[in-house]
């Protein structure tokens, strides 16, 4: 079971590196998807090996996938709106507030 946990830890921290380092907002969203998938693998592995008769890990993973889908959709809507008004989506160049 430890091998699955190693895989998910490496995936999580690769997502953290991308979240900290990247400038483009869409690349930051992709790193966030990596983080959420790593957490999903962790839930499922703990369910299969430590609690084999129960299904809570799988259902939690299903709800995480659903919430991630909704959040990505709203984030992309916001990014498109920002792009329409200021033509760039780098995290260090979108710095002017409205007033």
């Amino acid at each position, binding site marked *: 079971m430890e091998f699955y946990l190693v895989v998910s830890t490496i995936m999580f921290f690769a997502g953290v590196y991308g979240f900290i*380092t990247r400038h483009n907002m*869409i690349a930051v969203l992709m790193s966030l998807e*990596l983080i959420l998938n790593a957490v999903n693998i962790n839930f499922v592995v703990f369910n299969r090996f430590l609690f084999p008769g129960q299904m809570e890990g799988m259902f939690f993973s299903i709800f995480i996938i659903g919430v991630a*889908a909704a959040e990505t*959709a709203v984030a992309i*809507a*916001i990014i498109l709106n920002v792009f329409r008004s200021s033509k760039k989506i780098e995290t260090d160049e979108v710095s002017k507030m409205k007033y």
Partner: protein
Amino acid sequence: MSVVSRKLLRAAIYLLFVLLATAGLYLMLDYHFLAAIQVSIYVGGILVLLVFSIFLTSQVGEKMPKVKTSKKIAGLAVSVAGTALCLYVLLTQNYPYAEKISKGEIDMHAIGQSLMGTEKFQYLLPFEAISVLLLACIIGGILIARNK
């Protein structure tokens, strides 16, 4: 590779491979329903949406500007330190393995009845809550991204 590539579309394709590989991991653990959900929602929904937005907001083929080396080293230090700490904590534990690890897929009837039931370990309330969340996200998404 999807966090270091300088072309955005290639990063999206590497993410596609990662998501397919995660679905493969779920299949190895005998979670067939979850693997099907992963492929259909993540690959067939979220990744397609991401690729659309990449085409809408950037020129395909241009390289993103180089990240400063000090920022890269700081990010790498944080990630490596976090990985080392988590791996140390995870691998030095004695896990209380169950006596019999059931190797079979979960029955679809059981999944359906758990998702719609109101007993102790059943999930009707989160199901309804997530449907309200999805409704709010649909309305919010349309409102934010519409043409004035």
